[in-house]
């Protein structure tokens, strides 16, 4: 009887249903854990709800409520697959950018069947999500932009193009020469043209100026959050701060900035009142390397469960995404475009660039500014470029007597127990070093 009923339903549909069920379940678990923390700042609710709307609820009408996405002549949505896509241009063309780099274990196991085994889980999850055509945030995109950073992202574009409209954005890999910079500016100008064609709206000087200012404001609030996290006694858990920053991917810069300002106000009040979330003795950890992308909250949760606090991250979903605003000398179109091109190329210290000495300086700066006691170096399986730079980072940290733990993992939960032991021992070691 049951068998007969089951056969009537398309097997692909059953597979999709199962996928959605497990994505919802694992996202709920992560969110429930975050919400269970008694010291969760009230203003975090906004960011948690964004994640719930995207991964749990998943209905299109829940996305970008302020932008009238559902109206007849709604705005175009442009997906981006890296922090190197100038979002200013997308806004100025009257579209909305969303950052699509995937962080879901379920999506990554779907992607497993579509890309080579040694590909990183970010690409696997991104291809997995896109291929299923289930999650609204991926479905609403009219085009996606894939910068040619590392090998996996470069080839990912071809896979994605089976399912959606893909624009490749060529990124030079050596920054320190005039030719590369000129070439990059050419590509950015071409992207501007493509966006204008997509939306049918010419990017004007005023609009560009406004969107540059809007993103600068978002960056200002993000930097404010980092400033607060420098304080000697932590007022927010790192896993919460990182989630708030991650939520930028799925929100408009304008709305997100308002919510971030509220969070910062709340945290500053906490700091001034001396309300703390963990003891001043908790080891202070910096996450370096591959970005934790929601809902893969495995590493941030484990580190803080073991009694440390993440005070900073050096990743393309966090500090690197938000640190440098576009610098514009004169508000001419030419000048603004040059400013945008420069901002998205020069300060980016993704290890897909070579040479990449600046990343080491940046890491040392962060270790000092955030009074970091230990570094956890996150390597997602298959991300060769980050692993390559590990030795250099190890050396500079050793010189400064900062312990470093390399954690190689992917999105699957199977190695959690082993990671727990390793991270616990590392945190234990940092704790006894602090006392000694």
């Amino acid at each position, binding site marked *: 009887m049951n068998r007969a009923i089951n056969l009537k339903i398309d097997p692909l549909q059953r597979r999709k249903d199962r996928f959605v069920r497990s994505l919802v379940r694992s996202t709920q678990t992560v969110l429930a854990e975050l919400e269970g923390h008694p010291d969760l700042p009230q203003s975090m609710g906004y960011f948690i709800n964004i994640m719930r709307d995207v991964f749990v609820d998943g209905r299109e009408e829940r996305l970008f409520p302020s932008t009238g996405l559902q109206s007849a002549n709604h705005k175009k949505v442009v997906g981006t697959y890296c922090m190197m896509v100038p979002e200013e241009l997308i806004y100025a063309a009257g579209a909305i950018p969303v950052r699509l780099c995937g962080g879901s274990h379920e999506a990554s196991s779907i992607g497993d069947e579509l890309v080579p085994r040694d590909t990183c889980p970010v690409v696997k999850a991104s291809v997995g999500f896109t291929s299923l055509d289930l999650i609204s945030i991926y479905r609403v995109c009219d085009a996606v932009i894939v910068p040619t950073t590392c090998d996996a992202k470069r080839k990912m574009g071809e896979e994605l193009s089976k399912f959606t409209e893909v624009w490749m954005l060529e990124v030079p890999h050596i920054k320190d020469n005039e030719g590369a910079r000129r070439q990059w500016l050419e590509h950015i100008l071409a992207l501007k043209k493509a966006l204008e064609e997509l939306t049918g709206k010419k990017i004007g000087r005023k609009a560009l100026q406004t969107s540059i200012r809007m993103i600068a404001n978002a960056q200002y609030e993000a930097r404010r959050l980092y400033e607060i996290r420098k304080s000697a006694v932590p007022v927010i858990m790192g896993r919460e701060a990182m989630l708030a920053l991650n939520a930028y991917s799925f929100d408009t810069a304008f709305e997100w900035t308002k919510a971030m300002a509220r969070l910062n106000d709340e945290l500053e009040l906490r700091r001034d009142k001396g309300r703390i979330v963990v003891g001043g003795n908790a080891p202070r950890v910096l996450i370096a390397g591959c970005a934790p992308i929601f809902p893969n909250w495995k590493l941030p949760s484990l580190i803080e469960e073991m009694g440390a606090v993440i005070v900073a991250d050096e990743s393309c979903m966090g500090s690197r995404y938000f640190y440098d605003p576009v610098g514009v000398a004169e508000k001419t179109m030419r000048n603004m475009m040059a400013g945008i091109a420069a901002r998205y190329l020069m300060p980016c210290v993704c290890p897909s660039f070579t040479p990449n000495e600046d990343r080491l300086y940046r890491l040392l700066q962060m270790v000092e500014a955030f009074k970091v006691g230990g570094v956890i170096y996150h390597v997602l399986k298959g991300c060769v470029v980050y692993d390559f730079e590990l030795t250099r980072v190890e050396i500079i940290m050793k010189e400064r007597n900062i312990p470093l733990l390399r954690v190689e993992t992917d999105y699957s939960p199977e*190695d959690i*127990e*082993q990671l727990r*032991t390793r991270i616990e*021992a590392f945190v*234990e*070691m940092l704790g006894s*070093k602090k006392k*000694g």
Partner: protein
Amino acid sequence: MEYYAGIDAGSTYVKLVIATHEAFLGQKVAPTGIDCCTTARKLFGELRDELGLLPTDIRRITSTGYSRRLIDIADETVTEIRAHAVGASWTGPENTKVGTIIDIGGQDSKVIIIDEQGETINFAMNDKCAAGTGRFLEVISRVLELDIDDFGPLSLKAMSPCRINSLCAVFAESEVISLLARQTDRADIIAGIHESLAKRISGMARRVSLEPGVLLTGGVALNPGFVSALEDELRMDIFVAKTPQFNGAIGAAIIAGNSNEGQR
């Protein structure tokens, strides 16, 4: 007299020691079984009876090892890394400072670098693959129909050790089976297996920059054939810990003794 207990609830065996501040009095070991908690309780009762102690004589119990959190009779838990680092101060050689501890367990293996005070400065773990662990030897012993205790003496008689090329325990097993089919001497096979295990461990040890004064712990340390293979591979002398299987439990007992938190 104040007594303390350390329990190392590993993946394969549960180890227990009872100690005072000065010395350790006795030890016991049993296979972990399906319920490590009951195993630990049983061992604890037996050892206490043997030493003629009352339950109230034990001031504090610390547990470590893979299942440390499941041991309900323990007052606190510490990671294996810390327990081994502390244990080395008792099980290490008399006149030489221990700089590195290599522990080969049933399910993982670790290299721990310690400073003069016995504090951990760096560590590396292999916890994803059976090839660098005691389990590897167990698997091979089954294929060779030999007791694991005979491995050491037999391998030292090897004339020309085989090269085992596979880095995976499962593939190495089939490699051994084909060597047997070619009627290779078992001594040569075991020597080759020891070499392959030693290569794995030394690769991991080099990554964390080995400090001189290497102490080997874990049951595998009782296998002289493996010890000499590892010495060849690392090109340095290795000290075998006193009662190597109990190093983690001893460390846990010392930590229990040093803890100034609330007593039982």
